[in-house]
């Protein structure tokens, strides 16, 4: 199932309607659905915030393959910028040392089983894989 979304944060409502439709059709466990929504939100918002050299829509493709949820987020006609790369987050910092922000990718890395970034012909594609037997988040 594939759909394209406007390049703005407000489009998240439509993104979540799309993922809910996919979850229903594929009878995904609530834990998997929540993880899917969280991972997609974090990456979608990062793309909107940091890849600003285009106004093109962002494509999201969802599938269940070989017992795993596979999410592909594709961004067309953009410069190379890997939104999945970030500094390691120290989650043991005190409240005073904590900065607001920067935790999104840390969450994504911990709730999916695999995340890859590919860039070719000015097209960036992020692929997330989550095995369906993982039921924690």
């Amino acid at each position, binding site marked *: 199932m594939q759909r394209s979304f406007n390049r703005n944060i407000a489009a998240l409502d439509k993104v979540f309607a799309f993922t809910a439709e996919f979850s229903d059709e594929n009878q995904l466990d609530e834990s998997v659905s929540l993880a899917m929504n969280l991972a997609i939100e974090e990456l979608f918002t990062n793309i909107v915030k940091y890849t600003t050299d285009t106004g093109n829509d962002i494509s999201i493709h969802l599938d269940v393959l070989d017992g795993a949820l596979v999410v592909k987020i594709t961004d067309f006609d953009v410069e190379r910028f890997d939104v999945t790369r970030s500094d390691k987050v120290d*989650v043991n910092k005190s409240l005073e040392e904590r900065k607001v922000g920067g935790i999104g990718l840390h969450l994504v890395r911990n709730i999916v089983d695999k995340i890859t970034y590919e860039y070719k012909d000015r097209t960036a594609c992020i692929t997330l894989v989550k095995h369906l037997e993982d039921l924690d*988040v």
Partner: protein
Amino acid sequence: MFDIKFGEDGEIFLSGRFDATQVDRAREELSRVDSSCTVNFDNLDYISSAGLGVLLSVQKRLNGSSDSLTLVGLNRHIREIFRIAGFDQVFKID
């Protein structure tokens, strides 16, 4: 749909989905919190890093006056998100 309500005793009730589309509204509503209080998650279904960031901002602001937020009623999914983020170390969670 996300909502924030303030109880008569100052308890804050969150409900629905606390995602990136709700940050501005949540920041504005929570700007009135100026002392220790309880945040009730009983009816909150989802939170992303955007929502976590709003709550962290409030906690950091209150910490200056030795006040803090106490979080109650987190479902197991949200509790796990707090754990992964290390936010269970910076919030009192009952």
